[in-house]
């Protein structure tokens, strides 16, 4: 490759020899091909999409009529993998059952009025707030909507939160 002649040509700023030019084009083409390969690989390994497209509709789960749920209780929805909590003041929260510490599934322990994680003993109250670490955040939320007194939970989108605040609660229209 870089023989003496071409070396001089480049050093002196004079027009570079054909050989050097061709070599550089080759290197460039090789680099591009390599970059393409990397992009291809990344695209290939991107998290797989579900085989059949779940429409936004399917992600919405109809939980039932508002008055089916007593204040101060928590109901588990196995299919949607969430808990529906009705707070003492009548408001609703839909929470993921996945512990925010290391993703174990948290059961609601009715006798103690709290979620207790079996893995590293994190505890959450009925609003999903952390009572006991190591969990760093309150349980994640799903959006709840109420139409004609029927509760719907959108399991398509998970919302992270650090702690409970009142604007996360959905209230039924007082009638």
């Amino acid at each position, binding site marked *: 490759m870089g023989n003496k002649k071409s070396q001089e040509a480049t050093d002196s700023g004079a027009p570079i020899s054909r050989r050097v030019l061709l070599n550089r084009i080759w290197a460039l083409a090789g680099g591009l091909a390599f970059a393409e390969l990397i992009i291809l690989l990344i695209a290939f*390994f*991107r*998290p*797989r999409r579900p085989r059949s497209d779940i429409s936004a509709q399917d992600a919405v789960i109809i939980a039932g009529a508002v008055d089916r749920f007593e204040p101060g209780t928590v109901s588990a929805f*196995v299919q949607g*993998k969430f808990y529906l909590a009705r707070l003492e003041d009548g408001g609703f929260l839909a929470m993921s*059952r*996945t512990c925010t*510490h*290391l*993703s*174990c*599934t*948290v*059961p609601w322990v009715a006798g103690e009025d709290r979620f207790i*994680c*079996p*893995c*590293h*003993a994190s505890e959450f109250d009925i609003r999903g707030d*952390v009572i*006991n*670490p*190591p*969990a*760093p*955040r309150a349980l994640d939320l799903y959006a709840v909507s109420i139409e004609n007194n029927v509760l719907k939970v959108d399991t398509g989108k998970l919302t992270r939160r650090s702690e409970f605040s009142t604007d996360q609660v959905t209230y039924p229209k007082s009638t």
Partner: protein
Amino acid sequence: MEEKDQRKYFRNLLLHFRPSTVPERTLRLSLTWGLGGMAVVLVFLLIATGLLLKFIYEPVPGSAYDSILYLQSRVPFGQLLRNLHRWSGNALILLTFLHFLRVFYTGAFDPARRFNWTIGLILFAAVVFSNFTGYLLPWDQIAYWAITISTSMLDYLPVVGVGIKRLILGGTEPGTATLMNFYAIHTAILPALLLFILPFHFWRIRKANGLVIPRSPSEDTGYPGPQVDAMPHLIVREVTTALILLAVILLISMFYNAPLADQANPGLSPNPTKAPWYFMGIQELLMHFHPVFSLLVLPSMLMVGLFALPYIDDPTETAGTWFRSRKGRKMALIAMGVSIIGTVAGVLLDEFQFGLNPSGPPDMITNGLWPFAIILAFCAGFYLLMKKLFSATGSEVIQAIFTLLATAFVVLTVIGIWFRGAGMQLMWAG
């Protein structure tokens, strides 16, 4: 005449990676303890048993567990096959770790060997990840939840963590994509990688003119001693070690079955849920430190330290001498004692004084920066004290610090495996 031909034959075949003669002293058991050789045997045993398992195992969540049950109950010697693969996998991690310790404590990472130290660390990583990816495959409760919590640790890595987790899992939680990812990595990529890297490991040994020459502390460097023919002297020792190891693994596999719990159930976490045993040290760290420290800062500092070691410390002067010198051995023993007491005391103190049930989530400062600073200060203090007390060489003090950290890691792992029960509470034995 006949014997000569035979030797030639062996020289061509078995000695492909070995020199025809080796320094006699490197044959001593008290140098290598046969650890590297045993690791090689296990790599091949794992590949052989793994290939057989591939004919039975089905890598889809719906049938993976059933295929394991089928293997165990219907396939002749199926249970034995699974046991062999499982116990060899665990033994390989243990033996590789011990081999790593022997290389460190005999100072076999001098400039001629330091590139091999790097290769060794990569091999170690490949061994651990092989085991980890294999752990998921039975798709039982142990597997599912161990992988869930181990991969969820990645959530705590700032910026890239969540993305890496999604990439590994092929989604947000373990499922079909996860199992297929793990299967491909476990049965193709990592074995290929191991088989590709191992020859480099052996080639570097030849390049360094064989292993370090073992010497007692008072002996001088420089005199390598006589050479002997590799065949039979080395080969016979290797084959003997291999046969004994195979017999032991076979015996263990006949009497102890590989664990299998109920089929994976994403709705029910067992109590307690534990990471695979070799990650238990990290899981234990996670119980005491803010995740940014236990999962990012401490491990990456250790990693950098290990890779940099042969470039910071040149053990040429003492290579081949266990623990560098008599003084070095004494210092290492002290470091070990201090570390055992310190780690146990630290865990207990954190559990019953600070860590247990504070109100509010773990804090970056009180659970992260402070204890981290205390540990750093402790190590620095120990370093200075050792240096002063023993007027030791750099090599000896680095060895003491290494011992301090390695012992702490082992103690944390032991606590995680044997002293954590339901709800991850501390408990006595069991």
